[in-house]
């Protein structure tokens, strides 16, 4: 069932006229504006590139939060699926998976492209991509949790940011340290393992919490 929902979401995203790419456009705008605000000075940009890309990615994920569960909640699909025997836990897992694949994965995969804007050395780019892949489940899990909590409400945008921003702090901290330590320690850097641990914790917490939030939002 999880795979069926995932397939449906991918097809829906492909037919949506490119709404899945809004996060990428946001990242491009955010990073370009940051570079302009920093006077375009390459020495500064090289230093700030990694944290800025992490920030842009977190913000882009937060911006897409309304797309996780809200459409299904609004048109009653969540309730219908529940009535036909698909548990909220399954729906939460499927929603999280499709959110990661459709919205978060493209953000992480395009990181090398963004790093060109900041003239980052190749070794940093590899570290960045690896750290992003380790952090991806955690990032998606907390954002999806915020999406499940805010549900179908239109004004959920700010609320979702308030909810997930404090939860994302550990991932942001470890992600930036892991990327910066990659040139010396490589993938063996302790922070990579910490990132994977944080992601697993986030999954363990967010999936049941999102399922509970879905059940509350459909009044079951």
């Amino acid at each position: 069932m999880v795979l069926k929902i995932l397939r449906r979401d991918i097809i829906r995203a492909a037919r949506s006229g490119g709404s899945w790419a809004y996060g990428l456009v946001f990242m491009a705008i955010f990073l370009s504006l940051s570079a302009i605000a920093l006077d375009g000075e390459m020495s500064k940009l090289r230093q700030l590139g990694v944290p800025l890309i992490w920030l842009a990615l977190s913000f882009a994920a937060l911006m897409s939060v309304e797309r996780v569960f809200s459409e299904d909640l609004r048109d009653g699909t969540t309730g219908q699926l529940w009535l036909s025997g698909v548990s909220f836990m399954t729906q939460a897992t499927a929603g999280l998976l499709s959110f990661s694949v459709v919205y978060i994965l493209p953000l992480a995969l395009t990181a090398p492209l963004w790093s060109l804007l900041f003239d980052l050395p190749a070794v940093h780019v590899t570290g960045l991509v690896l750290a992003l892949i380790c952090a991806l489940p955690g990032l998606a899990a907390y954002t999806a949790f915020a999406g499940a909590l805010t549900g179908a409400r239109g004004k959920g945008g700010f609320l979702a940011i308030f909810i997930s921003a404090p939860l994302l702090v550990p991932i942001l901290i470890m992600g930036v340290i892991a990327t910066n330590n990659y040139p010396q320690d490589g993938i063996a850097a302790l922070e990579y393992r910490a990132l994977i641990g944080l992601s697993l914790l986030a999954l363990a917490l967010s999936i049941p919490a999102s399922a509970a939030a879905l059940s509350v939002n459909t009044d079951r």
Partner: protein
Amino acid sequence: MRFISYLANPVRFLRFSRFATPISGGLALGLIGIGLILALFISPPGQEHGEAVRILYVHVPAAWCALAAYSGIAIASLVSFVWRHNLADSVARSLALPGAAFTFLTLATGSLWGRPAWGTWWQWDGRMTSVLILLFIYIAYIAIWNIVSDRRLAARLAAILGMVGWLNIPIIKFSVNWWNSLHQPATVSDIGAPGVSAELGWPWAVMALGYTALLVWFTLRGTEAELVELKRNRAASSKPAKVTLEDISS
């Protein structure tokens, strides 16, 4: 547990709060009064930081209450979520605003202390950063109550957030400490570390008890106010019918 289910009935709760509220209010007033006299006049100035050390008599109890209030929210959320305890929602909601205020007070007084002690208003050290993030969690918790208009729905969603937020606090604290230990050498001279002498310890203990009584008072008053509002809403939505079938047929 029996006490918690006893208080689930609003009438019984009001019976309990009728004497508990004035007692906690009086205790708060008395203890904070005595604590202030002890802290401002009787306790000696610090050896290193002089009179500025008195800020800590306000700061440390506020930090304790900020954490206690959030733990209270998490416990009340659990009780509300598992046993569908009506009043636990109101208690959790009433704890949020004073908790956020205590967190803000902790940050403000910490900043005032930081200026004379470390020469800076703000330092991205582990403790200050994690308290700042605690304030953000409080704001998210309060926001969910304000944005979701259906009270029952808001209560359930806020309870989920309360519990998840509480589980995350140690993770956030750990990661901020990790970050801090990498980026900055320890600049905090922990005055409490080697054990506090009695003349410094007494005002602290009295103030901490006073603050706790104040937190209890805020919570009880908040819950009472919630009950009044709920009663008013219920009265407005279900007025007795004035027209009966007999009236129509005649």
